[in-house]
């Protein structure tokens, strides 16, 4: 299995409130609330750390879960978050400068 890289989309507004990670899509103003594992993925999504290593260091170390199963679930979750436009998923490291730039004032 090749490595996946995940990065936080620059087109969202995000903030933790009393331990809850809240994310609002800048695309359609949809509001997301992430659970604990999704929050770990979001916070770790720096674009350069492979998902496999995030799972190994941040999720398997935190929860009692088999590594293969955790990685599979994390990939499914990452792609789901990408479909909503709040994560970017790639098989290559993701640099911030590669994000598209929108109309701004």
């Amino acid at each position, binding site marked *: 299995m090749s490595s996946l890289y995940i990065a936080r989309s620059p087109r969202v507004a995000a903030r933790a409130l009393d331990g809850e990670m809240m994310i*609002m899509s*800048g695309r*359609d103003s949809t*509001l997301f*609330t*992430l659970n604990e594992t999704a929050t770990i993925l979001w916070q770790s999504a720096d674009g350069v750390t492979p998902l496999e290593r995030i799972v190994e260091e941040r999720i398997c170390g935190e929860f009692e879960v088999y590594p293969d199963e955790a990685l599979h*679930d994390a990939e499914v979750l990452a792609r789901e978050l990408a479909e909503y436009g709040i994560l970017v998923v790639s098989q290559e490291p993701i640099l911030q400068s590669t994000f598209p730039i929108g109309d*701004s004032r």
Partner: protein
Amino acid sequence: MEASGIRGIDAALDVGRACCRNGSSLVPEPQAEGVQSPVPVLSTEADQVSVVIDVGRMPIRVNSTHPGFLGILRDRYTGFVSASGEPAIEFKVEIVEPLTDDPDADVEVAYSGRRWNILRGDFRAEWEPATRRGWIRQTASPYAIDSVLRIVHSLVLAKQGGFLLHSASAIRNGKAFLFMGVSGAGKTTISSLAPANVALLTDEISYVRPQNEQYIAFGTPFTGELAKVGVNVSAPIAAAYLLCKGPENRIDPVERGEAARALLANTLFFANDQELVQAVFDSALHFVEKVPVSKLTFVPDARVWEFIA
């Protein structure tokens, strides 16, 4: 580990039409037959062709050559018509036939070329923040300009850390209270039950702006079912309530995450704009950190106001 990490996905901002469709007459008033002065006097002429509508201490001058339309505006915005000489924003209104066959089409708000472009079936508008000027082409109806005003105020407020909120609001003993809820939650009911010592700011759209480490609620002319224009006054917000009708009057605490979700779900915002979405999101979360938000369950009679002080 859960198969899906997303606990809830809610449409958060009201991006649809927020224009109420009651409370104002569609029928233009008869034009006054004024005596023409042989030499136009600027101040008098300005009075004849413009109306300044001051909501949230942000006066907006509306210029039109259609005197019947200005008469409609003076009636519609009673209590909010100002004599301000220096408006924050100025619009020239041109009265036209309906732009499309679908006046119920969704409003489109987009920023392009340093201007906001606002389009709906019954109007089209442009506004350039740098020059503070814009134009509106619309039918001779107050509903169209009501929507333009709400949209422009929501855009300006977003930059100031404030927002328009789908909620009733009122002032009692120098403190403002917000009552949030979707249609049917009780905004109109609690507004209509307000005792005499309560100044009703609005039964539908609240105007909220930060000022000196507080959030201030201002009266608005934006009405709901009560069709009663709010009082043009303001006060610091002491509390916000999520409304719910029930078998008894009670106030229950609300976690800040739930409060933020409710606030965002009731925020009126129209623009598909990353920068302003970020601003509104930050404002909502800051608001719930500063202002206590609770759930107010109430029996629809006047005793509920014993809880609001």
